[in-house]
């Protein structure tokens, strides 16, 4: 399986790129599995995911929790909690 992986804000800065196409091994089922595998890919990936309480996920552009099955999703995005204006 091949999936588009997107990173935003400081997650992107830590990983070093904004987008990549990845094919995780078959034993990767949930998003937590996927993150564990991502952390082994580079020191940048490891650093981006060092504090998971600050990571949010969207699967095919929908907010989802860490234990979600990736299934046949085409796009997964990792980013910090969202922040808008100061009001």
């Amino acid at each position, binding site marked *: 399986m091949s999936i588009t992986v997107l990173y935003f*804000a400081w997650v992107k800065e830590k990983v070093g790129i904004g987008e990549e196409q990845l094919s995780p091994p078959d034993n990767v089922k949930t998003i937590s599995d996927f993150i564990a595998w991502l952390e082994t890919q580079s020191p940048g990936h490891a650093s981006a995911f060092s504090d998971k309480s600050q990571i949010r996920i969207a699967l095919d552009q929908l907010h989802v929790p860490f234990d979600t099955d990736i299934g046949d999703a085409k796009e997964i995005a990792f980013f910090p*909690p*969202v922040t808008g204006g100061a009001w």
Partner: protein
Amino acid sequence: MVIKLQSEPINAGEEINTFLASNSNSGGVATFVGQVRDFQEQGAGESTCVSALELEHYPGMTEKELERISAEAQKRWTLDAALVIHRHGRMNPGDAIVLVCAAAAHRGDSFSACEFIMDRLKTQAPFWKREHSSTDSSWVVARERDDARAKRWEKVD
């Protein structure tokens, strides 16, 4: 229901007048404008100067999320129309970041829908804010108050 995402400045008054004209038979129109402030609270009464703000977003998901939020507002309240305009990219203090308008026969519906859209938007729409001061630039950390405000609406689900 109209969603606009733009990097150009938002002319709030002009957009509101257009919205009013196309909803002239709605008794009440509630609107909200969020503006870039030239300072950032640091707690304990401290604040630092903000010279510019940069809003990164998730193209594709942002539009979908704003549409989901507006659709949910239209399901919860009796609205004639809703408008959400959000800016992204770099902006200056005093610029409008977001404009929300909700038109309804009764003002209670327009106020609640407008406030709901704002609360949801702050916790769900994929925007990340970076503040630039004269010496520094940093990502802004999400606030718990916003989560608390957004949670209020879950009770009415």
